């Protein structure tokens, strides 16, 4: 079974630029999560989708971050405009409705904002 795919793996941008990350969850997984992991900290949930609906986006900085999962499969997370403090690893995870207890994580996208 293929794991969670993310791209790009690395991205370097200047502040005030825009950036987008892509995630393809494990096939058949209805629930998709985006986490932000700042260096030296644990991951923090940004947004959670179930199919193509948002379940929880309470910690998403909506003035600059947006995410979508239009067809209930892959997802895109966008930052516009980026700030220095957005430098982090962005992790995507997915879980199935049959086994909701386990989230499977992708390798992450490391973003550096200069």
């Amino acid at each position, binding site marked *: 079974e293929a794991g969670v795919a993310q791209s790009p793996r690395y991205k370097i941008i200047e502040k005030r630029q825009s950036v987008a990350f892509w995630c393809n969850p494990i096939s058949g997984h209805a629930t998709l*999560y985006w*986490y932000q992991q700042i260096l030296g900290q*644990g991951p923090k*949930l940004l947004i959670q989708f179930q199919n193509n609906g948002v379940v*929880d986006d309470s910690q998403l900085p909506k003035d600059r971050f947006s995410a979508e999962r239009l067809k209930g499969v892959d997802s895109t997370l966008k930052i516009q405009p980026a700030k220095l403090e957005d430098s982090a690893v962005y992790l995507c995870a997915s879980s199935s409705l049959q086994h*909701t*207890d386990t*989230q499977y994580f992708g390798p*992450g996208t490391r973003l550096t904002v200069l």
Partner: protein
Amino acid sequence: AQSVTQPDIHITVSEGASLELRCNYSYGATPYLFWYVQSPGQGLQLLLKYFSGDTLVQGIKGFEAEFKRSQSSFNLRKPSVHWSDAAEYFCAVGAKMYSGGGADGLTFGKGTHLIIQP
């Protein structure tokens, strides 16, 4: 709101020695508890999880953890560490699953960096 505390930022253990990583959680109801490991450049890998039942849970790679409700703890243990165990370890708590399926996102601790001495 739930929270997780991992009191040790770094731990150094000699290869072959036993290991215990501490985790304390705060949650109003029965929590779902997890331990993940993250090696450099790798994604998070689930080591073990606790939902209910036996408070001593076994995981992969020879790890185990014990849920102690009275102490709000879920410490990770391994009887004999190997050099390949050097990594970052995260404890996480999840809220109860909801009836429509799916589970809330996890709340992670800040992690414990494990260093293995030869």
